């Protein structure tokens, strides 16, 4: 009997989710503020997903000249804690494509829904570890923009601050790294269509890919507050220098082994209720883009704005 493409991946993912829920219910709960591990504050970055769960709302504007079209994308993300160490994430994006021939396409991408379990937070070593799964729900977006099939993406997330380095290298303590690694499984292996010229059936394969993305951060906030007050005033004393490396490797089909990604050097400013950021988007190869793009981030800390209502976990 022929197995449905992606069925084994789907079953495995559901089993993993069920196991995760059981463990979450059995573990003692504790409450962490968003993105904190001891003295370390991990800001939300641009394209590398956070290692932590939170009550937050983000708008990310992404403009880049891709291999086939100039893309402008407005990404909207909302994260909500259900338990102090478990949360859900919702993602939507409005995409505008301008092709090389001058034609355009606009519309909403598929709705994304994810779950994340922050299973370790170590204050002394400034470490956060999480696992989660994201579902890009096929067919929920505009047909000219979005995939008609669902993609399931289990992943491992990490964040590590270097505040535990010895005094002799104290100026390295403001450094931190975050990252995410995980496969992306399409629930349909290919899309069949009829070639109008030949009348033959053509199948476009949907490859499995591997996301491996990380960021390197240097926190001026951390430097000023915990290492050395070098006299930085506002707004620099709340800035974090960030360089992201969001990468993806194609694992099957015609593109197997090929890598796409960008290098995103930028800066974020973290206020009490909001975060702003701007970064360049430098393609690593021609498959990733043809020119340097830009990323702009506006982020709201819902848990600080409304700590006793919608900013608190649903279940304590």
């Amino acid at each position, binding site marked *: 009997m022929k197995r449905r493409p992606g069925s084994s991946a789907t079953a495995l993912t559901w089993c993993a989710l069920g196991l995760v829920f059981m463990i979450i219910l059995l573990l003692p709960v504790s409450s962490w*503020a968003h993105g*904190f591990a*001891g*003295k370390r504050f991990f800001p939300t970055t641009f394209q590398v997903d956070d290692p932590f769960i939170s009550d937050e709302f983000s708008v990310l504007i992404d403009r880049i000249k891709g291999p086939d079209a100039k893309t402008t994308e407005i990404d909207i993300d909302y994260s909500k804690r259900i338990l102090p160490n478990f949360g859900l994430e919702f993602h939507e994006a409005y995409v505008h494509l301008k092709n090389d021939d001058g034609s355009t396409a606009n519309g909403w991408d598929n709705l994304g829904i994810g779950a994340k379990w922050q299973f370790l937070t170590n*204050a002394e070593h400034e470490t956060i570890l999480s696992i989660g799964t994201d579902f890009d729900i096929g067919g929920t977006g505009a047909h000219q923009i979005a995939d008609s099939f669902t993609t399931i993406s289990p992943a491992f997330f990490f964040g590590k601050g270097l505040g535990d380095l010895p*005094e002799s290298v*104290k100026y390295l303590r403001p450094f931190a790294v975050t990252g995410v690694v995980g496969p992306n499984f399409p629930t349909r292996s290919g899309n069949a269509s009829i070639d109008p010229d030949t009348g033959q059936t053509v199948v476009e394969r949907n490859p499995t890919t591997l996301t491996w993305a990380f960021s390197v951060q240097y926190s001026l*906030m951390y430097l*000023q*507050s*915990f*290492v*050395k*007050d070098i006299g930085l005033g*506002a*707004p620099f*004393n*709340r800035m974090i220098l960030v360089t992201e490396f969001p990468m993806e490797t194609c694992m099957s089909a015609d593109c197997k082994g090929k890598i796409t990604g960008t290098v995103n050097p930028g800066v974020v*400013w973290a*206020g*009490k*209720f*909001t975060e*702003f950021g701007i970064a360049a988007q430098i393609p690593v190869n021609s498959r990733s883009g043809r020119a340097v793009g830009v990323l702009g981030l506006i982020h709201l*800390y819902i*848990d*600080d*704005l409304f*700590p*006793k209502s919608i900013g608190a976990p649903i279940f304590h």
Partner: protein
Amino acid sequence: MLCLLAALCMTPAPALGHAFPEHSDPRVGATIAASPERVRIWFDSDIEPLFSSLMVHDASGRMVDKGDSRVNPSNAALLEVSVPKLAPGAYRVIWSVVARDGHRTNGDYTFVIK
């Protein structure tokens, strides 16, 4: 839009949200000539007196402050503790605060008396 964002960045924040240190005395990582009478940290938002503390340890980890850590009655964002005359050496300031919204932050820094 850039001017508006710059203005928002420069504007003092209201007294809510996670409390983060703005400046301190002695300053973070400073080398000073004489022992201070007290150690003070100014935060960027008001903190809860009952759940906030400040300690000073010497290089061997022994507590050397006078144990009178308090939020300044005239400034709810100022945390302070008195210290006796300290000998030359390295000292570690350890703080833990809860902001008015209930979020806890903590940290530490060192200073040296030469």
